[in-house]
């Protein structure tokens, strides 16, 4: 770790959030919004940098704090994008705010995906539902430096055709030939879906991968991991080429409060991204 960073972490800022302004709010699907935030302190805004897969602790002042993953890629600095589902006390309060209102943030925290290790490799991103939020950061990072990576596959499973996050952004990329998309929906009650209906694991029949050069990144609901990993095993992808982003109730974000323990690890500081081969002996992990 850089001495400068260490110095920063030795200060009160470990727990003290900094003010940020909501620049824009972009509606996503029902109950989900994309918030663009900018730190108010200009110096801090300029210095803010993160890795794909990291998260922030977001404070709605006077209400509380919640961990939210960063959806924007490091390659597009300036604003911090977070894709939020209205679920608890803090996110419900956040949904009452408007552009121009203030929140406060700490972070970024956690380790992030090893982008450098993925360079020169085939990359497969597998997302379920809101799991796309942190993976979007990785997806856009790869697209922003596309030549550094080989084949790119995105598999994304949603509940139904109306639940696809970043729909227009994904549609806008549909014409690109340098990324392969596979979408699935669990159900299609309205009969409007032309692609695969079923859980995301069903998509694996449709792809060929080279296990030696393929690296995978997973994020989705807890139930998804075990089944997707089974499919990856069938494809003979080595365990140390699979990265999972795990979710736990991270309160402090800095490896102190104990809420996010997974075996001997803290999800907030040792994760949220884990190399699957490192957590094979932790049964509770996935």
């Amino acid at each position: 770790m850089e001495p400068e960073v260490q110095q920063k972490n030795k200060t009160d800022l470990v727990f003290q959030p900094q003010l940020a302004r909501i620049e824009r709010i972009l509606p996503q699907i029902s109950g989900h919004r994309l918030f663009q935030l900018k730190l108010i302190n200009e110096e801090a805004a300029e210095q803010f940098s993160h890795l794909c897969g990291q998260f922030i602790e977001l404070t709605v002042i006077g209400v509380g704090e919640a961990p939210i993953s960063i959806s924007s890629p490091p390659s597009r600095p300036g604003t911090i994008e977070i894709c939020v589902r209205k679920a608890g006390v803090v996110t419900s309060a956040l949904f009452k705010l408007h552009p121009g209102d203030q929140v406060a943030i700490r972070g970024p925290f956690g380790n992030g995906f090893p982008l450098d290790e993925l360079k020169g490799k085939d990359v497969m991103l597998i997302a379920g539902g809101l799991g796309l939020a942190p993976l979007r950061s990785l997806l856009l990072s790869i697209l922003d430096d596309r030549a550094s990576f080989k084949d790119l596959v995105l598999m994304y499973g949603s509940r139904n055709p109306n639940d696809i996050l970043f729909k227009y952004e994904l549609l806008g990329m549909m014409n690109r030939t340098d990324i392969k998309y596979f979408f699935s929906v669990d159900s299609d009650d309205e009969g409007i879906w032309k692609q695969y209906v079923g859980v995301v694991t069903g998509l694996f029949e449709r792809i060929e991968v080279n296990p030696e050069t393929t690296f995978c990144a997973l994020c989705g609901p807890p139930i998804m991991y075990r089944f997707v990993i089974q499919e990856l095993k069938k494809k003979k992808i080595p365990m140390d080429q699979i990265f999972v982003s795990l979710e736990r109730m991270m309160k402090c974000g800095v490896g102190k409060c104990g809420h996010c323990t997974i075996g001997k690890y803290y999800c907030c500081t040792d994760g949220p991204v884990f190399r699957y081969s490192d957590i094979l002996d932790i049964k509770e992990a996935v």
Partner: protein
Amino acid sequence: MKVIKIDKQNWTGGIDKSRENYQIFGPVKDKEHFVFKKLNLKEYPDMENALSVLSPKSILFPQSEKILAASLDESQDDHHIMKRVATDYSPRAVIGIMPCDAKAVQLVKLNFDTDDYRDPYWCDAYEATTFVGLAVNKPSIYDFTLSMGSGPFAEEGLDVLLVDCKDHFLAKVLSEKGDAFLKASGFTSEADADKSAKLINEIKNQAEKAIDAEKVKTEKLKEKSLLELHGASFWEDLSFSCINCGTCTFVCPTCWCFDIQDETKGKKAVRFRNWDSCMSPLFTLHASSHNPRAEKVQRVRQRFMHKLKYFVDKYDQGTMCVGCGRCVVHCPVNIDIREICNTMNSYEAEQA
């Protein structure tokens, strides 16, 4: 090793003298129980080695602590900016802390004072504190400190170790902080090093004999397989009677988990941190309603695996239990960490 002799008739006078430079914390009797608290003038630590209900961890890590506050009054220049709350970190001395509780502080330090993130509240309190321990001459039947890398006369984490020698204390000076405290108390009369070492050793040997160090075994915990221990069938039995009251976590000197909560009254927002307990199902509950440890057996396993396996593997500094015996005394359904430790330590995976 410098040893100071303190005649008991001078004891309270010395404590009073030290108050000029230190806040004094110590054990006192509150109704039928002992508690550690900040002592006001005319209050003195009870030097009877009684096991306080709660450990002294709250001196560094209060049960409820204001960590940040912000004004929501927009006429103020700094409105909505959450700032650290002013706290008194002037020198404090904890007198009469048991050696195992002082060791517990060192174990908790591994979590709060790390290279990546230093917890400013805990660390500032730690740095302000001088630990003046009292050796346990007569260990209780619940004391299993010798099995857990501590002991009735253990010195780790202490600045001074006081040994009760009937009409006087012998004070082993273990650090500069300890030296400074004794000087500030006017305790400066040096005892003969050899004679006092001999006397302390006699009392120590006597005390250690009262504990059966073989009763609780930990030596195999490290080599046990995580998956096998995790999958062991004994967890169902061990957790059966647990009522998830959380008492074990609150009385434990090494349990450091906390919750963070915001509270707003009028124009003032305050962020607190409060002791939390992994025994509560809410501890791991996500806003999405998913709960990684929804079942009681998972939570009971988590607590003991953390103390006796995860911590052992992560830090290689022994167990995250110092053998004080509080959870054994206070568990309402008699769950006994000593038995669980032995069960884990001697566990051989069932044949498939």
